[in-house]
C-alpha cells in the first residue's frame, strides 16, 4: 500500500482549496470503506486523502418541520440513518436499504454520500434516494449547484461530479400523504452482501385510491441505478391491486437491462424484479392503509 497524507479540513471551502493545491493526486474520503479498500489493493494511489469528516454541516441529518423537507448531510453514516426513528417511521425505504448494508462495522463508518459518489450499480443507498426524488447539492470551486440523484450517475464508478466538487447533502422534498415505500436487497447472504438485484418501490395514492405517483427503482439492473419509467407510468392513474402490481413487475423486468454475471443469471434477476415489485408494492399499500 502506498503511503498518503491525511488532511482534515473543517469547511467545504477549505476542502476544495486543499484539493486545488494537490489536484491530480488528492482524493476526498468519507468513511473510507470504498476508498481505503482501493488504496490497499493498489487500484488507487493518492498522495493526499482529504477527509470530510470534520466538516460539521455535512454530518447533519435534519427534517424541516415547517417545509417538510428532509436534509441528509453527505457524511451521515448508514448507522445514523438506521438508528433514526424519524427515518424509520417516515422514510421506511431508506431504513430498508441502509440497515442491510455490509455489516455493523461498515455501517458505522460508511456514509450515504460515499455510497452515492462511489457510484456502483449495486449501491444500496442510491435506490431510496432516487425513489424519494432526492436532490444532490454539489459544491465546487465555482460555487453550488443541484442535481437530481437520479441524474447523478453516468457509468459504474462515474458521476457527473466535476473535479474537486463535493457532494454536500441530499435533500428530499416533502412527502405527500398516503405514501408508502419499501426496498429489498435480494442476495444470497444475510450480511456482507451486495445485492444480486435491488428493488425499491414508492407509491402515493389519491383520496380515491388511484395511484398519484409511482417510483420503481432498480439496482444492478443496469450500469447505473435506474428508474423503471414504463412500469411507473403504467401504475399512475390506476387503482392499485395485486394484479396491477404483477403487471407492473413484468414491465419493470422487461425494461431492466440485467445481465448474466458470475454472481447471478439475467433470467433470475428478471424474475426477482417481477416478484419483488409486487411484494414491495403490496408492502407500500399496507403502509398506506395502516397510516390512514
Amino acid at each position, binding site marked *: 500500500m502506498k503511503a498518503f497524507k491525511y488532511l482534515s479540513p473543517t469547511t467545504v471551502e477549505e476542502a476544495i482549496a486543499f484539493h486545488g493545491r494537490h489536484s491530480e493526486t488528492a482524493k476526498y474520503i468519507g468513511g473510507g470503506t470504498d476508498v481505503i479498500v482501493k488504496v490497499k489493493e493498489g487500484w488507487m494511489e493518492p498522495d493526499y486523502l482529504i477527509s470530510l469528516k470534520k466538516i460539521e454541516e455535512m454530518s447533519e441529518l435534519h427534517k424541516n418541520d415547517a417545509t417538510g423537507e428532509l436534509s441528509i448531510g453527505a457524511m451521515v453514516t448508514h448507522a445514523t440513518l438506521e438508528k433514526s426513528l424519524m427515518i424509520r417511521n417516515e422514510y421506511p425505504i431508506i431504513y430498508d436499504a441502509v440497515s442491510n448494508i455490509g*455489516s455493523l462495522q461498515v455501517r458505522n463508518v460508511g456514509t450515504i454520500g460515499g455510497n452515492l459518489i462511489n457510484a456502483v450499480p449495486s449501491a444500496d443507498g442510491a435506490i431510496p434516494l432516487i425513489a424519494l426524488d432526492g436532490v444532490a447539492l454539489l459544491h465546487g470551486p465555482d460555487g453550488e449547484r443541484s442535481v437530481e440523484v437520479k441524474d447523478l450517475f453516468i457509468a459504474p464508478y462515474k458521476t457527473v461530479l466535476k473535479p474537486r466538487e463535493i457532494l454536500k447533502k441530499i435533500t428530499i422534498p416533502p412527502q405527500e400523504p398516503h405514501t408508502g415505500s419499501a426496498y429489498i436487497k435480494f442476495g444470497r447472504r444475510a*450480511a456482507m452482501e451486495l445485492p444480486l438485484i435491488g428493488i425499491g418501490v414508492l407509491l402515493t395514492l389519491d383520496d380515491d385510491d388511484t395511484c398519484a405517483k409511482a417510483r420503481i427503482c432498480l439496482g444492478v439492473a443496469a450500469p447505473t441505478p435506474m428508474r423503471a419509467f414504463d412500469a411507473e407510468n403504467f401504475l399512475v392513474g390506476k387503482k392499485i391491486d395485486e394484479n396491477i402490481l404483477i403487471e407492473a413487475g413484468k414491465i419493470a423486468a422487461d425494461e431492466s437491462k440485467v445481465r448474466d454475471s458470475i454472481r447471478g443469471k439475467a433470467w433470475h434477476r428478471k424474475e426477482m424484479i417481477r416478484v419483488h415489485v409486487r411484494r414491495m408494492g403490496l408492502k407500500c399499500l399496507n403502509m398506506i392503509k395502516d397510516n390512514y
Partner: protein
Amino acid sequence: MSKSNNELSSEFSVVGKRIPKLDAAQKAMGRAEYIQDIKLPGMLFGKILYSKYAHANIVKIDTSKAVAFPGVHAVLTGEDVPKKMKMGLIKDNPPIKKGKVCSFRDEVAAVAAISPEIAKKALGLIEIEYEELEGIFDPEKAMEKNSPLVHDHLKSNVLKMPWNIHYGDVEKAEKESAFVVEDRFTTTWVTHCCMGTSGAVALFDASENLTIYTNTQIPSLAHKDFLEALKAMGLENKRVRVIKPVIGGGFGSKLDTYAYEHIAILLAYKCHKPVKIVFDRVEEFKATSTRQPTVTYIKQGCDKNGKLTFRNMRMVLDNGGHTSWGATTPSVMLMPISSLYRVENVKYNAKCVYTNNTYSQAMRGYGNPQATFAIESSMDILAEKAGIDRIEFRRINKNRSGDETPQGLKITSCGLEECIDAVKEELKFDGKNEKGVGTGIASLIHVGGGARIYGSDGCGAILKMDDYGKVDIFTGGTDMGQGLDNITAQIVAEELGLLAEDINVVHSDTDICPWDVGAHASRSTFVAGNAALGAAKKVKKKIQDFASKLFDVPCEKIELKDKLVFVPEDKEKSMTIGKLLRKAHFRPGGTMLMAEHFYDPDNQNMGKELKGNMSMTYSFGAHGAKVKVDEETGKVEVLEYVAAHDVGRAINPLLLEGQVYGGVVMGLGYALTEEVTIKDGKIMNANFRDYKLFTAKDAVKIKAPVIETIDKDGPFGAKGIGEPGCVPTAPAIANAIYDAVGVRIKDLPITPEKVLAALKEKNG
C-alpha cells in the same frame, strides 16, 4: 430422549467437563503467535509469480530486471529448482514449473526481497513469453480420446490410480430388487476459508540445518518432505526442524506440503537469510487447494420390505493439474458407499482426471460429503419409490454393533439408531408443515478410531512430572484449533487425579515432540488421546508403585484424585502428589517420574483388494433440517437444524459442540452458498464478497445432541468427531427442500436459481 449434553460423564472429575479451550485467552487477547507475527533478524520476504495461462508452454523467461531491482536478494525460476524436488502424492509437482504450466496457479518464478512491496514490484519486472495451449476443464471431456493432454508424457488424463471395487454380486442383486433408482449428482469446488492465511518462514543455520515455521497439520510428514527437499538440494544428512505456530484453521488444507514452503526453503538457502512467505487473501483463494468436484452416478435398490439390496456407484473426480491427496479421497468415499447402512452388494468405480483447473486436496470429510450427498439423496428417492417412510427406511437398514461390512469395516460401538431417533424427535418429522416448509434427514458414518492410510497410524507422547504435581506432555498430535490441547490435558488430568490446568501440552515442534501421522481423519482425540492416556497410565503406575512402598499397601489399593495419592480405606495414608514426587526425587538414588508411550491402533491398511478395517471404530450421526423455500425466488431458509452424533464419549462437550456447530455451518455453506467459480481454469471469485461463506448472521440455531456409546477402544470411550459435522449436511438440506416443495436438486450448491428453475420445470 437423549440426555442433555450437561448431564454427561458425571462419574469423572475432568473428563466430560466443559472446560474452555486452553488457549482461548491468548487468542482472544491477540497474544497467540500466528505465522504472520513471526519476525526474525535479517528476515527477507518472498513472493511468488503465478502463470498467466491455464495451459501454456513457457518459451522464455527474463528475470534480469527483477534481479537488478534494488532490495531484491534472489530471483528463482523453474531452472533453479533441483530436479528431484517435487511435491504431492505421486511427486508430479515441482515447486516452480519449468517448460510448461498446466493451471493458473502454477508457480513460474519467485523473489526474495527486503520488503513484501519490493518483492511484489520485482515480480512485475519478470518477463515471460508463453505459447498458449488448448486447455481442458471438464473432467468427463478430459477422459475422451482426443482431449488435449495436461501432461504430455502421460498418454491419458486419467490418473493411473484406478478405484475399482466389487463386493458381492451387484448385477444379480439388481435383478432381484423390487425397487431400483438411478441418478447423477454433482458437486463443485469449495475451499477451506481458513481465517489465517497460509505462510512459512524458513532459515538455515551455519551448518545448513533447516528450521521452518509453517502452517501445517502434519509436522512429522512435513519433516519428511523437507528432508527429501534438502536431499534434492544436495544437503544430505542435514537436520530439519518443523515448528507449527498457532494456525487460523486447518480443515484438511494443510495435509500436504506446498510450493510456498519449498520456495521459502530455496530462497532462504540461496540468500543465507530467513525468508518469509505469507499469502494474502486472493492468493489464499487461488493458490491453495480445494475440495474435489465430483460427478457421481448412483444406482441402488431394495427388496419389497425396504431392505437395501445393492449400491452401484461410479465417480469422476476433477484432479486439477497436479496430484495431491485429493486423488486418494475415493478411499474414504468407499466407506459410506460400502458401509453407510447395511448393504451387501457394492460396486464402486472412481477415476481421477487431470484437467487444467486448480488441484484439489483434503478437506474436512475427505470425500465423504460428496459421497454422502449422493447416497443420502438417493436413499430418499428410493424410500419414496418403495413407498416406505424415509425414517423407517433408514431404520430398516441401519448399521448395528457387531456388523462387519462388505469392505471389512468392523462396527463396534454404533449409535446410529439413537441419532436418527434424536433427529426425528427434535424436528417432529410426523407433524404437518405449512406450505413451502419441509424436513429432511441424512446420516453419516466416518472413521472414529484413526485411519490407516500410511504404514503407521501412530502417535507418540512423552510425559514428565515436575516436583510440584504439574505435568508437561509432549505429544505428536497437533492442535489447530480443534482442541487437542484440551483433550490431552483432560485425559491426562483425569488419569493422574489432577486438574486440566496442571497439564502443559506441548505440540507441533518436531525437535521436541514424538512422531505422529498428522491431524487428519478425525483421529487426534482417539489416537493422540490414547497415546497420552498410555503415557499417563505408565506414570500412574510408577506413582502407585512408589506410594505402595511408602504406605506399605498393595498397588491396587492406591488411588489418585484431587491432587492426592491416597488409600481410600485408610484415611491416614494420603499425601499430595507434589509431596510424593519430591519424596521420590530428593533422596539418594532418587528418580523423577516420566514415561513415553507410542500408540498405534490395531487397524488395517486396505490392501490391493481395498478391503480391511481401516479404523478401530466408527463415528455415526444423523442430521435433520427444517427449511422454508420461497417458491417465487427459490431461496432456502434453514429454520431449524439438528445434528446428533455418536461420539463414544464426549471428553469435553463444549468443544465437541463447537466442532459440530462449525462443521454444520461449513456444511450449510457447502449445501447452499459456497462455490469457487472457475471459468476456463480461472478463479473468478477470489474474495469473500463473491465467495459466499456463511456470515454470523446467516448461521442458524443448531441443536447437537450427543449420543454416548462408550467405545471399548477409545480413550475413556471417545471416538473422533472432527469431520462428521459437515458430512451429511448437504443431503439433509436437499431432502428437506424436496419435502418442502417437491423438487430434487442434484447439483451443489443449491442456489435460488437452481431451485427456481426446478420449480418452473415442475410447474410447467
